[in-house]
């Protein structure tokens, strides 16, 4: 770990040295973190930024593992596995990319902006949160739109409602929000959250129910899916966090 800073109420950005991951990561991919004295299983986090030999992740405390992570100090060692999963695809082009994120869903968006820009696209950044204090102010778009549930900053309402249409839509946020994305833009690319056992495709613990039946692995075929491909009602929208010792 190389640094830690707060970017919104309860939301932090944590930096770490990881040269190989920094060199190869694509937007929407994640790393699986473990640390001495940590929980048994690793914890997955989207890569937020990659520069030189360093990567950053966005961190919100929801349980014992994330609390330990936040308590760590620069200099402490983490084991970082990645980059994992399939990221957003900007290959088929289009001129206009809209990046829609809610809450922690902002995590893959800085890299998404980078990759979309590299593909020659114009970027609209749409980010929403419950209230201004929880809005992550770091952004990267040709157009930037804020949305808050209580109207305390930007448009009142959800990021999905606030976003314009476009050729390429990528979205990340709570599964409930992504279901709304699927309703409006079946062809959008969405990054979903699930529990993960291994992050490398061997445990089948990260099952994503598919519209065509059966399950995919979020860590391997995902975490990015075509919105209409996911069977949203069958995907738990709420992940209960809790490992007590």
């Amino acid at each position, binding site marked *: 770990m190389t640094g830690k800073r707060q970017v919104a109420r309860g939301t932090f950005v944590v930096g770490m040295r990881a040269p190989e991951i920094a060199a190869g990561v694509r937007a929407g991919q994640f790393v699986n973190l*473990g640390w001495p004295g940590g*929980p*048994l*299983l*690793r914890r997955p986090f989207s890569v937020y930024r990659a520069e030189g030999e360093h990567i950053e992740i966005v961190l919100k405390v929801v349980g014992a593992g994330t609390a330990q992570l936040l308590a760590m100090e620069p200099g402490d060692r983490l*084991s970082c*596995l990645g980059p994992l999963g399939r990221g957003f695809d900007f290959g088929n082009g289009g001129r206009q990319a809209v990046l829609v994120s809610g809450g922690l869903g902002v995590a893959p968006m800085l890299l998404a902006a980078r990759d979309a820009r590299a593909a020659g696209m114009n970027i609209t950044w749409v980010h929403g949160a419950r209230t201004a204090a929880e809005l992550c102010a770091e952004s990267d778009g040709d157009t930037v739109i804020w949305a808050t549930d209580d109207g305390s900053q930007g448009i009142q309402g959800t990021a999905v409602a606030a976003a314009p249409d476009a050729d390429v839509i990528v979205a990340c946020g709570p599964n409930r929000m992504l279901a709304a994305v699927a309703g409006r833009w079946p062809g959008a690319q969405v990054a979903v959250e*699930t*529990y*993960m*056992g*291994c*992050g*490398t*495709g*061997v*445990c*089948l*613990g*990260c*099952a*994503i*129910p598919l519209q065509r*039946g*059966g*399950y995919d692995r979020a860590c*391997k075929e995902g975490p990015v899916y075509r919105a209409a491909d996911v069977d949203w009602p*069958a*995907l*738990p929208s*709420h*992940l*209960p966090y*809790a*490992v*007590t*010792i």
Partner: protein
Amino acid sequence: MTVDMSVALGAMKLRGPVLAASGTFGYGTEVPLLDRSALGAMVSKGIFLRAREGTAPPRIAETPSGMLNAIGLQGPGAEALVRDYAPRWAEWDFPVLVNINGESASEYGELTARLDGVAGIAGFEINISCPNVEQGGLYFGNDPHAAAAVTEAVRKRTKLPVWVKLTPMVGDIGVIARAVESAGADALCAINTFVGMSIDINSYGPRLSFRTGGLSGPAIRPLAVHLAHQAARAVRIPVIGIGGIMRADDALEFLVAGCSAVQVGTATFVNPNAIAEVHDGIGAFLTAKGFGSLDELPRYLPRD
């Protein structure tokens, strides 16, 4: 000085005592750059004759020093296995066994017949933790007659090594162990996961969609060592110890307790290189103690 880490499990010779446990190493092809040179053998993800979707999410939950899983034996079925994976296994320098499952003894037999003789498949590990649909959903694994019947059904269809993977959810593991030994098993694997449950107190119900799951990881290690030891005392065929092995010392507990080899499962999730590290650690331990081969490791195996 190098230590001889090879192991003979009946007719099957392995280059090392550390194996990949079923369901925790996929089909061996998922992690591209993984170093497999320490692998004694791999047991592939449990398979049924026909493709299975598996259970709805959430499928896993973490518990103190352990995890619960209810994957529901998701898999592509025998045809796809033969088509997509076996050809790759045939190129590898360690044996791959298939973990086989069925809802009746005859289904186990049918699956064996389909897979026997396919290049790349070196043997079978029978998972008897499945519900026996013919007998109303009771488990094969805690009924010595049912367990023996499944073993015989498989034994009749193949000359390849047949291992039987025991469930810990039994009153006396020795009874089952002897029953499947008599039915022709070449080795026993002890043990599979323990049935457990975790409750989400905010939603007033189980965390897993399947309600219960199998507990694995370090939490179960002392229970697994005991059961593997009891199995090893009950039979003459080799026993492969499984349960909560994270590092070499843990594997050595099973080996000292009378096991001939071990399988590593959950540890691979945490550390994709766990098997190589366990293998190397056992070697270092043997060297430090002055042993030239794994065979020289003293075993604690009172026969009474």
